């Protein structure tokens, strides 16, 4: 047993309770805020975590120090004897053994916690010392020269007991992103076999944050040592696929991960009318969502889009609405009919013209604001629904697209995950969804949007499905309380003092708040259902390239002219494709036809890329110069007046 470093003291004004105690130490003691200590007393062992510290001397009032120094501050430090001084710490009880009867902490010797003490104090023995352990490393607890691994319980991080994780911290330190990357890596490496498979879907919402998860980072020796201490391999994710919408030109990807060397696993994210229409509610604000609009959208979805629609008032032939262009044509036919044939009637098939116009405007709006996301050819390039591989990461880069389109992407991706997990046919048993900037998507104040409702639904019921939300934001206080409240595990990086002073942090001691306000990069405060008090842990830098470094090493490719951009896309499938060959193929073609062929080629990934692409372009219709027609000149006659 180690030598005691302190002694519990209890007075009438500062008594010990079952949940808190005070102890003093020598001045040179290594104890600090967040240190875990063990109190040994007869028939009882108590584990506590230091939450506050005090120091004072036997000086009764400051004036006595003035008197002692003859009023000269310079002399005050030269008294022959230093005043008796106390280092008094307050600790919150983590655990008492025996647990019953629960009693005030006894007066006893205080020791620094050992490795095994940390396991017991944090109740990690409940999930580490079992036949089927479910611990996953989250970092190391370091105090007083001790460095003990801290584990999170997979049952409480990824369900079914509790789930979800939320990270709060100031922007700019990369702590939030780094923590998620490290934790995901830890989950992928240590997720218990008996719990099945796991994958992650990450939304990259700003800059290049998550754009290089498959690229190795340069780690320091200290980082590698920490990985070793935690039993983890310092390596980037092995199976990562990126999805990004196109830019408005339909051929250049809208992502900072556009370097040609990274093109192999960077896919376009393109949706057709069907995909958008299913989530039309996302596009409508609360005022729009009335029964009439809902009914008309339902009509479009069930009767029109993707089906043969027959209505002789609109067309003699069956109408096929597969794309936004088809839909626009469909609307135009309705309006034409109502204006011309129905003699300015205001109702078509029981739908008022105002409702039809509103739905048309909203749907048309998305095709404009998310031009690179939606396609006119009706064919989607999407995540591999139903074919998610174990330990695969899917990053959807929405950083460069319109907020409305971001909402649409987010809503559809999460809904699809939910649908597949409900049917147990996604390909994996658990999916971690990472969303940054949560205060933007689920704000405490503001409109009750579809995305906000969906996040709430996810946080409240996702764990039963294996759908787990990892979320991050700068200001936890500005996020919908029920969303963050449902996060079983919470991480806190360096915090802004304004944020810490909000009521949500009232349970933290002033010293803990002060430590949070100055927390260095790579350190976090952790709340986890097994831990009765927040705990400070240190974690190594993630083994994958940070976004900032990634864009320097893999500079984004410049937007290319149309032919070169098409060639680059095809070269990702076949490095032998050259610009001249592509130029020869697409010369004189309409851009929309080329885009359609390109998307089909990317979707199919044929063996002979150029041949398939050429076939998709279809037979070239040769131009021919029509002879000039006109009115033939008048036959010359003699001018009787000439």
């Amino acid at each position, binding site marked *: 047993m180690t030598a005691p470093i302190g002694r519990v003291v209890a007075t009438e004004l500062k008594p010990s309770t079952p949940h808190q105690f005070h102890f003093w130490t020598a001045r040179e003691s290594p104890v600090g805020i967040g240190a875990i200590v063990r109190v040994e007393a007869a028939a009882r062992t108590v584990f506590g975590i230091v939450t506050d510290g005090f120091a004072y001397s*036997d*000086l*009764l*009032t400051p004036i*006595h*120090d003035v*008197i*002692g*120094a003859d009023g000269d501050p310079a*002399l*005050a430090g*030269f*008294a*022959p*004897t*230093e*005043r*008796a001084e106390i280092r008094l710490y307050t600790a919150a009880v983590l655990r008492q053994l025996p647990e019953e009867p629960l009693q005030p902490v006894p007066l006893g010797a205080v020791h620094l916690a050992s490795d095994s003490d940390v396991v017991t104090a944090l109740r990690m023995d409940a999930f580490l010392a079992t036949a089927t352990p479910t611990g996953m490393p989250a970092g190391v607890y370091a105090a007083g020269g001790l460095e003990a691994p801290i584990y999170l319980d997979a049952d409480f991080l990824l369900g079914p007991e509790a789930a979800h994780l939320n990270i709060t911290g100031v922007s700019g330190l990369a702590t939030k992103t780094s923590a998620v990357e490290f934790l995901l890596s830890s989950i992928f490496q240590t997720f218990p076999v008996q719990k099945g498979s796991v994958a992650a879907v990450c939304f990259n919402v700003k800059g290049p944050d998550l754009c290089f998860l498959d690229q190795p980072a340069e780690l320091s020796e200290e980082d590698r040592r920490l990985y070793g201490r935690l039993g983890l391999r310092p390596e980037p994710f092995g199976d990562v696929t990126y999805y990004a919408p196109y830019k408005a030109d339909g051929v250049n990807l809208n992502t900072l991960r556009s370097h040609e060397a990274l093109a192999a696993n960077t896919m376009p994210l393109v949706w057709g009318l069907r995909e958008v229409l299913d989530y039309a509610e996302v596009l409508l604000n609360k005022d729009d969502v009335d029964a009439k609009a809902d009914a008309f959208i339902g009509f479009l979805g069930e009767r029109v889009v993707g089906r043969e629609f027959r209505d002789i008032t609109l067309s003699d032939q069956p109408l096929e609405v597969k794309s936004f262009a088809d839909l626009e044509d469909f609307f135009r036919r309705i309006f034409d009919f109502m204006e011309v044939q129905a003699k300015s009637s205001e109702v078509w098939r029981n739908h008022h013209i105002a409702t039809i116009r509103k739905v048309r405007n909203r749907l048309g709006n998305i095709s404009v604001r998310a031009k690179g996301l939606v396609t006119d050819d009706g064919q989607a390039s999407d995540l591999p629904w139903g074919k998610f591989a174990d330990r695969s990461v899917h990053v959807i880069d929405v950083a460069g697209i319109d907020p409305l389109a971001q909402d649409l992407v987010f809503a559809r991706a999460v809904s699809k995950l939910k649908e597949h997990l409900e049917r147990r046919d996604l390909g994996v048993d658990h999916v971690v969804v990472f969303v940054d900037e949560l205060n933007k998507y689920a704000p405490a104040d503001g409109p009750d949007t579809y995305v906000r409702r969906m996040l709430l639904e996810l946080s409240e019921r996702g764990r039963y499905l294996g759908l787990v939300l990892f979320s991050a934001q700068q200001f936890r206080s500005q996020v919908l309380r029920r969303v963050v409240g449902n996060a079983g595990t919470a991480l806190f990086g360096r915090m802004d003092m304004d944020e810490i002073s909000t009521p949500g942090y009232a349970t933290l001691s002033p010293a803990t708040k002060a430590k949070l306000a100055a927390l260095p990069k790579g350190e976090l405060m952790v709340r986890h259902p097994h831990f009765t008090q927040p705990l400070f842990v240190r974690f190594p830098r993630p083994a994958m390239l940070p976004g900032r470094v990634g864009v320097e090493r893999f500079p984004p490719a410049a937007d290319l002219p149309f032919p070169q951009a098409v060639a680059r896309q095809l070269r990702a499938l076949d490095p032998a494709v050259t610009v001249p060959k592509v130029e020869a193929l697409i010369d004189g073609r309409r851009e929309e036809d080329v885009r359609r062929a390109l998307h089909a080629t990317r979707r199919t990934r044929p063996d002979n890329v150029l041949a398939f692409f050429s076939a998709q372009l279809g037979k070239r219709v040769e131009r021919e110069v029509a002879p000039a027609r006109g009115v033939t000149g008048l036959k010359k006659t003699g001018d009787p007046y000439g």
Partner: protein
Amino acid sequence: MSTRASGWTRLRRAVAARGFTPATWIPAASEGRAEEATIRPARLVEDLRIGGHPVGSPEPWPGTVAFLDGTQRYEVMAYAGASPVVVAEIAAAVLERRDRQMHVAEVARRRLVIARPEVLGDLEDAIEGHGAIEISEDEPPHPVKDFQLARREVDAARGRLEVEIGHRYRSASNAWMIVDGALSESPQWARDEKMLGVAKSHATLPFGGGDLEHYLRLPAGMRSPVFEPAGNEVAPVFSWALRLWPWQGLNLLHGLIRVEAAATLETLARADQLSRWLLAERAPVSTPDPRWDRLLYGIRAVEEYLRASGE
């Protein structure tokens, strides 16, 4: 108060079981020594008349310095007829100052029962673990007089304990040692050239008349001439008064200490130097102790240690 009672509860019960009348009486000032106010004329060895010697600016004491003090507490816990049975705890300690930090160097404690001889005989094994001290039975039992006798015995026992640990410390260290009170407790102390006694009490004064007036009106930062106190024939010492803090507007004894040192020419030669070292000991101030103006912080630290670590 309750802590003291509980500390002796077991003994009190055992004494009551033997037919004595249990009692609880903690006399006022039970933690201090009994002293009578008197004047005992001293012999000046430095000047011909009393006058103030400016000692110069305070100087920090070089090297290690030890502080020795003792504490006592006692109470009446029973009566054997009219005679009180007194129980006491005495303690003494040496705290050594190294690099401005105080460290416990020596400590000793004793628990005592003081009563008439036949009472102590009756108590026998009930007071096991306690030192037994008899008071005179020349006169018939008297509750007040017997108590005064017991109190004197406690004072003496404490003095002996202080001497004991002082000797123990000196056998291990040659550092300067400052004792709370007089050096005359021990002839060995009185001869020790690296020992000073610092008396806060002025119940016994060395001069009378006009000399006393000069003696008591020393300005701050000045000392009296060195003198040899009377009544220390066995262990003669040299002494002088030193004013640590201005007294004007307060009382004549405010900030006035009496220093004792070995009766040697060396002491005479360095009375100013020793006074400068002592002046530096004014800081830190020993508040909130009411004797802060005369109580050196090192001595107070010993008292605080003994009180805090006592049973």
